[in-house]
């Protein structure tokens, strides 16, 4: 399996994506990182075929993605969107079932995908009654059930508690073990080291840098991407990058906290 994306451009109004690309083979996890509004979600939507690119190519196994039949595509590409749907009277199993309607996945897979996330107790629950985090996990279960070769995930870690985001982390790892290609947008710069084989840093619809985490994640690139200074410290799991003002002894952060605490003391 091979996903090759070259020179993808797109524009709508003032918003532009310029010459984006990435390469991934089976078992690769690609992270896309950048500020809000930098075009990460739009890029994923273009890969998923929801939005039409203006130029460039998206090739899967040496065939242009548009050459695949409409019915083949859900077997190739699946996507976890940021939005949580709000269907009227669906149970959790109804929601997940929709992902297998057109790919002919067996209904037993619905329970299996919930079990992978440790939430099979939700099987018969009304979807609308779940908490926000549970809904996100159920939508992730639809992606597992769909069982496509390429899994696009738009900020799967956002809005989740530590337990649930660990579950998502575990699922991304297990998709990797199943030799799928995972493209994931995220905001946690430090999780990249533990999760991703390659990284694409984006800003204002353009690529800032791409490559392995070691090549890409450094003070200079992060400052270019986010416009604020970064520092790093070493940990057993590799370097950890944080905005400089968060580090103690660097002046600003501590002064802000001092100010806050000072107010409370008074």
């Amino acid at each position, binding site marked *: 399996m091979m996903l090759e994306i070259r020179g993808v451009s797109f524009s*709508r109004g003032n918003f532009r994506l310029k010459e984006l690309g990435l390469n991934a083979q089976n078992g690769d996890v690609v992270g896309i990182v950048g500020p809000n509004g930098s075009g990460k979600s739009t890029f994923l*939507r273009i890969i*998923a*075929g*929801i939005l*039409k690119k203006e130029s460039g190519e998206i090739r899967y196994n040496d065939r242009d993605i548009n050459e695949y039949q*409409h*019915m083949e*595509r*859900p077997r190739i*590409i*699946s*996507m976890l*969107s940021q*939005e949580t*749907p*709000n*269907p*009227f*009277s*669906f*149970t959790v199993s*109804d*929601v997940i*079932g*929709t*992902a297998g*309607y*057109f*790919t002919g996945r067996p209904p037993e897979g619905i329970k299996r995908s919930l079990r992978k996330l440790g939430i099979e107790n939700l099987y018969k629950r*009304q979807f*609308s*009654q779940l908490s926000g985090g549970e809904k996100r996990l159920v939508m992730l279960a*639809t992606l597992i059930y*769909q069982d496509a070769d390429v899994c696009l995930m738009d900020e799967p870690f956002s809005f989740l508690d530590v337990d649930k985001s660990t579950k998502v982390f575990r699922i991304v790892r297990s998709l990797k073990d199943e030799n799928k290609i995972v493209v994931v947008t995220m905001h946690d710069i430090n999780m990249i080291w533990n999760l991703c084989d390659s990284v694409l840093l984006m800003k204002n619809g353009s690529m800032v840098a791409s490559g392995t985490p070691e090549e890409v994640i450094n003070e200079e690139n992060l400052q270019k991407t986010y416009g604020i200074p970064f520092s790093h410290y070493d940990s057993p799991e590799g370097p950890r990058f944080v905005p400089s003002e968060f580090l103690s002894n660097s002046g600003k952060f501590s002064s802000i906290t001092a100010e806050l605490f000072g107010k409370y003391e008074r």
Partner: protein
Amino acid sequence: MFKYITERHILTIGTKTKIALSLIFLLLVILASFFIGSVKIPFYTVMEIMISQVPVLGGMFHFHFTSIQHEIVVLLREPQIFSALVIGASLGVGGAVIQSIFKNPITEPYVIGISSGAAFGAVATIVLGIDILGIYSIDLMAFVFSLVVVYLVYFLSFRHGKVPIVYLLLMGIAVSLFVSALVAFMVFSNVRLQGDVFFWLMGSLQQITWTELGIITAVNVLAIFVSIIYSRELDAIQLGEEYAHTVGVNVEFTKILLISVIAFGVSACVAVSGLIGFVGLIVPHVCRLIYGGTNRIVIPTSAIIGGIFLILSEDAAHAFISGEVIPIGIVTSLVGVPFFMLLLSRLSRGSYDA
């Protein structure tokens, strides 16, 4: 008596049993409705008249009914009851489909311009005295203009080769208001005809002929059939159009196909009956509350419940004031709203929380 309609009673019955019971109830309602009206006709006579209509069987017996009884049953009650069934089913299914496409519980088939377009066609025919198809002129004009407005709304909503749902909804409301203003202007400038127009707008099943019934049945059987076939696509669309796309739904094709069949079906009904409100909005919710589940269940049951609801409303329209028939559009809301409120409070199980 309301306390017996509790969650437990209704929920412990399986979905298939519930649907079977609903079908039996529908048959009983149809049968019972033959006996409601200002002229009392005995049970036996109604049965005789119905058997006499069956092609081969009808010739085998000697019947004892008067020609007036025969006329009342065959030319008045049968078209009214069966048109109530078809129109109720059409509006119910239309509501279920449109609510799924718009992912919005307060939409109904009329929001895409069906009602205002049909009203424009009908009122223009009445006011301008247009005569192109004899007594069916109003039907034809209402049907044509209803579809004209629906497709106008649809094509005005195109953005970047797609029809975003929010545009469609807003455009539908905007165009409907504009067309309604034209209707109001026509009515305003022809005070003499306000009575005729008023009764058309209220909705009525009194004047429906067998020809009209045949046409709306054919169109709506097709519309409901297509909606049931596409219920899985609708389920996916309800979870978001982008999601539907990634699981393999041709979203834009599904939308235009379903909006078209619903527009044809509901327009045909509105053309012969006038505007009957409330059914398309409420019936799908009633089905979601009673049966729950996906569109595979909600769409067919919306046809059943819609039919039952409109037949009962027609009965009530006859029964409220003896010798007088209230326009059915008034009854649907008078009878339906309290019932719906009861159901919502008893059965929602939190499905509508959020």
